[in-house]
């Protein structure tokens, strides 16, 4: 027989039927159903196959801990594997598919694994399939992989959006059962900012499965009335369909809200899942308790279910578990189910109570057998009978459903997420939350309180105490009168059920059974952390919510110690699985990271620039022209044109820092290794910054715009780091200096105008005289443009080695000014050039970048020895720069390199060997830091850091590319390949 929908009852909306499919078969449920209750209501018992042995599996629970009823929901990009049917709300058109079966759910070839089970016991992959070794990769591993496994991820992109949110509150209440509701009411009425989190679609927790009356009304009415009051309070936020999954530093809680996982077609403008980070001054865990399975033979056969879950299906969903129901209990809670079943006309076949001294005043009609256990259950794809063992005698009872009531484990996971270990209580036979928690308390059954009235009172009282600590004074919500409340003493644990013949499962999802744990102990893996990994108990997607406590109890009995001595494995976030989509939030695709756009971006785009990402910036790489088929053609043309005529390059992304204050000069003198005290107003100077260890940190130019105002440029890559560093120097090292810093990188559109025609072109828009006498090399001044229509800053500095300027104008005018220069320069052959050409030009001139400033290079290594002041009393790096290792003549030094045969080439990163030396680590003399094809030299040229390189110009070497195994004969040379006398610079 099978489960079935009762003709009446439950909180479902029977006027709203919903069609859905399971493995393609059309079925009907009702609004308010979970997928699990809808399947049960349709008489579906067999819902999946187990992970390892492919045993038939049904539904075990009605909540988050479900290990068996995992299915794949949705299609295409919305496919979601391993969805717990117990947590999935039913919606019209839902498509569910079973998993871990092939070719079909009913006929599954993998079930042969059940026959192979002697070879698949604990630690099987360490033992059984080891020999012969080659077979592991070819045969065993692929077979095991195909046979095992859960759902399959979709390869189609998810069309939905996900987002992250922050929230802040005085009190976070996790769980909306009686304790949570009381806490939220107490805090909400006092005006505190409250967030109430409930993982199901409806608030109420276990009250929704109850038949008790509260204040003379059904418990469900009490929930509705309480929720209505909470909804009326502006200071209370309710997050339904939201699972609090982790407790983090600073009392921040992570929670996942399933915003649109219960609708046929999500609204495109709204996220389907929302990841909350809730900053709570105080938090109350009212998460309830998890019922424990009992470990008897065949306890996984479809039809065996948790007793509490059976009550939920009956009372909340109007679904009966079967017609011949048995109850196996170790405590009083099993009788509540018996009463509820009888109310629906189902008299249990038998109640098996493990306690010989059971004294519950049961008034029902079912036969009660005390001091007995269910030792085995029988049936294939559905339960058919159970074996009851009492005083050594067995009795077979035909049933189609069996409830297990093994006692309760408080759901303390979050309380353990910050490292504290749970504590075993003999009195409660359970692991309890660690003591001395800060910012967090527990109320209700998670704190071992039993009964609805007591949980409500506990919630109100704990909320009041927590709020007292933050000086929010409240009156606890008035106690409630409950009729039909069940206050049960804690269950004595029944770890080892006697007389078991069949496989008695501990971890249903990972197919770990009792003998696996025995084996682990026998083979020396009895420590809880070892047993977990040896047997895989607790390692499935449910993380042992049902299995861990039983495994610990069984290990304890096998080792002859208390569960306290065995201890638990570590509780870590996440409490239940969280989708990668939610963790990524919006940060993927176009929104993966922000884009930083130059004020000249659109100008460059109009001129056809190809862009390259450097950090977050998009820089123009080169500007291809019609007829150019390779990037090299474009770059060669741009390089030649700069040296022959003129070019314009966007350098807006250089870091720019305003340095103001009476002591700005002294400050610069200390952060640069070269002298800055005497830089005149109107002049720029190249500066070198060291780190305290004596290596070069960054370089750039700094200009003195007025007496107490300097303007520094940094490399693009180190702009943010240099600003932080300068602030450190100003705030921490030398707070006595009057110096103020501001980044102005984004204020200015800055362009380099380089080439022999640069002056003539620039003069058309700059009002001041730009002749070499009036505006010599390294002049740096504010200038007026277009007859005073605009003001900018002009610097005569050059990275290309040509007559060159950098012009900075307020960013909004950048495009217009660039266009004006292009117009004016058309006559003189101006062309835009990108960072590729810029790089070739600087390599031709031997100018270094962070390719050479690699963190291990000193000023001396790069030929800047004279820029390290010997006379300044202090500067960053001074103390360490003279260490013997940093001035060793054997160090790698900057040198140029070119191939002997110009037709041959080499790449950046290639290593330098003495001519024809063997390619070994010992023979390595350095490496090529930068390389490019130089159209002026007519071959590849490179800069390299090579041992004693500065004194080896002219030496023939071998350039070795170890990745491609290429050996190129080359010659070391002066790193300045072009215009070594700088004749073009000073014209």
């Amino acid at each position, binding site marked *: 027989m099978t489960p079935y929908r009762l003709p009446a009852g439950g909180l479902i909306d029977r006027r709203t039927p919903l069609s859905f499919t399971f493995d393609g078969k059309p079925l009907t449920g009702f609004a308010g159903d979970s997928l699990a209750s809808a399947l049960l209501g349709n008489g579906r018992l067999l819902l999946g196959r187990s992970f390892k042995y492919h045993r038939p599996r049904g539904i075990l629970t009605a909540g988050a801990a479900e290990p068996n009823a995992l299915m794949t929901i949705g299609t295409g990009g919305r496919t979601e594997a391993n969805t717990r049917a117990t947590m999935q709300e039913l919606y019209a058109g839902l498509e569910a598919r079973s998993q871990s079966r092939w070719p079909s759910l009913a006929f599954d070839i993998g079930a042969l694994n059940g026959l192979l089970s002697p070879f698949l016991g604990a630690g099987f992959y360490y033992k059984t399939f080891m020999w012969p070794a080659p077979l592991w990769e070819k045969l065993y591993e692929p077979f095991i992989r195909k046979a095992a496994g859960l759902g399959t991820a979709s390869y189609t992109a998810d069309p939905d959006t996900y987002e992250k949110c922050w929230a802040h509150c005085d009190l976070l209440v996790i769980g909306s059962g009686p304790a949570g509701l009381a806490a939220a009411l107490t805090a909400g009425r006092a005006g505190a900012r409250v967030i109430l989190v409930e993982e199901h679609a409806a608030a109420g927790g276990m009250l929704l499965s109850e038949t008790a009356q509260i204040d003379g009304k059904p418990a469900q009415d009490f929930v509705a009335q309480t929720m209505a009051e909470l909804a009326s309070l502006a200071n209370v936020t309710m997050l339904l369909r939201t699972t609090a999954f982790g407790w*983090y530093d600073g009392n921040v809680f992570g929670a996942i809200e399933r915003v649109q996982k219960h609708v046929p077609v999500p609204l495109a403008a709204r996220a389907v899942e929302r990841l909350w980070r809730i900053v709570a001054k105080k938090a109350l865990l009212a998460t309830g308790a998890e019922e424990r399975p009992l470990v008897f033979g065949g306890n996984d056969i479809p039809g065996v279910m948790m007793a509490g879950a059976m009550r939920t299906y009956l009372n909340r969903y109007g679904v009966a578990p079967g017609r011949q129901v048995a109850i196996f209990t170790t405590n009083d809670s099993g009788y509540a189910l018996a009463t509820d079943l009888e109310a629906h006309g189902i008299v249990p076949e038998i109640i098996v109570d493990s306690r010989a001294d059971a004294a519950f005043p049961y008034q029902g009609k079912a036969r009660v057998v005390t001091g007995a256990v269910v030792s085995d259950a029988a049936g294939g794809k559905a339960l058919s009978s159970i074996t009851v063992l009492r005083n050594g005698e067995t009795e077979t009872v035909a049933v189609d459903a069996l409830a297990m009531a093994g006692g309760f484990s408080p759901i303390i996971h979050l309380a353990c997420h910050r490292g504290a270990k749970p504590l075993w209580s003999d009195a409660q036979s359970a692991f309890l939350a660690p003591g001395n928690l800060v910012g967090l308390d527990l109320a209700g059954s998670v704190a071992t309180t039993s009964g609805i009235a007591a949980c409500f009172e506990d919630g109100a009282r704990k909320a009041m105490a927590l709020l007292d600590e933050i000086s929010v004074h409240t009156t606890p919500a008035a106690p409630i009168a409950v009729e039909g409340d069940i206050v049960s003493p804690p269950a004595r644990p029944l770890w080892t059920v006697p007389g078991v013949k069949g496989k008695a499962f501990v971890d249903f999802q990972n197919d770990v059974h009792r003998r696996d744990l025995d084996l682990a102990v026998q083979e020396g893996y009895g420590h809880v952390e070892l047993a977990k990994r040896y047997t895989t108990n607790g390692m499935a997607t449910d993380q042992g919510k049902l299995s861990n406590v039983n495994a610990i109890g069984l290990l304890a009995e096998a080792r002859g110690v208390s569960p306290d001595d065995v201890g638990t494995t570590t509780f870590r976030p996440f409490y239940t699985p969280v989708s990668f989509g939610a963790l990524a939030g919006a940060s993927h695709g176009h929104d993966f990271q922000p884009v930083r756009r130059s004020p000249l971006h659109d100008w460059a785009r109009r001129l056809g620039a190809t862009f390259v990402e450097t950090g977050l910036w998009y820089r123009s790489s080169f500007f291809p022209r019609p007829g150019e088929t390779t990037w090299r053609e474009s770059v060669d043309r741009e390089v030649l044109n700069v040296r022959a005529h003129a070019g314009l390059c966007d350098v807006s992304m250089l870091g720019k820092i305003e340095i103001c204050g009476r002591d700005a000069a002294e400050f610069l003198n200390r952060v640069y290794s070269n002298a800055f005290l005497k830089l005149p107003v109107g002049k720029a100077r190249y500066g070198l910054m060291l780190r305290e260890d004596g290596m070069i940190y960054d370089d750039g130019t700094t200009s003195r715009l007025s007496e107490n105002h300097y303007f520094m440029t940094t490399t693009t890559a180190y702009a943010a780091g240099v600003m932080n560093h300068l*602030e450190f120097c100003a705030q921490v090292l030398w707070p006595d200096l009057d110096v103020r810093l501001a980044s102005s990188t984004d204020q200015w559109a800055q362009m380099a105008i380089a080439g022999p025609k640069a002056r003539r072109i620039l003069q058309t828009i700059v009002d001041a005289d730009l002749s070499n006498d009036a505006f010599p090399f390294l002049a740096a001044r504010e200038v007026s443009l277009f007859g005073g229509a605009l003001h900018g800053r002009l610097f005569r500095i050059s990275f290309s080695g040509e007559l060159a300027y950098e012009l900075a104008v307020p960013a909004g005018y950048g495009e217009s000014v660039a266009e004006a220069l292009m117009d004016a320069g058309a006559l003189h052959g101006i062309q835009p050039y990108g960072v590729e050409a810029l790089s070739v030009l600087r390599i031709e001139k031997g100018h270094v970048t962070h390719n050479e400033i690699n963190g291990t290079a000193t000023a001396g290594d790069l030929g800047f020895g004279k820029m390290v002041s010997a006379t300044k009393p202090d500067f960053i790096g001074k103390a360490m720069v003279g260490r013997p290792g940093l001035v060793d003549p054997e160090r790698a030094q900057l040198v140029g390199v070119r191939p002997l045969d110009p037709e041959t080439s080499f790449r950046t990163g290639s290593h330098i060997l003495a001519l024809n030396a063997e390619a070994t680590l010992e023979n390595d003399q350095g490496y090529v830091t930068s390389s490019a094809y130089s159209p002026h030299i007519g071959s590849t040229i490179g800069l390299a850091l090579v041992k004693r390189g500065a004194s080896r110009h002219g030496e023939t070497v071998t350039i070795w590319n170890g990745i491609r195994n290429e050996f190129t004969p080359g010659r070391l040379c002066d790193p300045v390949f072009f215009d070594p006398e700088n004749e073009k610079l000073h014209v």
Partner: protein
Amino acid sequence: MASLVPCPHCGARPREEFTIKGAALVRPAADADPAAWMDYVYLRDNPRGRYDEHWHHTAGCRRWLVVTRDTATHEIAASREAVLGAAGEARP
């Protein structure tokens, strides 16, 4: 998922807003013994427990702070301005 750092000027902020430099040490005088400089640049205590570090509120007020952090528990006992003397609340 989250951890909050108290800033004396801005209140509790997520760690992502900060840049951490490392141990909060006093820079030796320029002419100090080379051994003092070796200590300052290279040697670190690496204690289990409380540790004073320089943190920069990069995406906030841009001030350098001394944050006292427990290396074992991540608990932040205090944060203060590196020079202004302003102290931050230890907890949000």
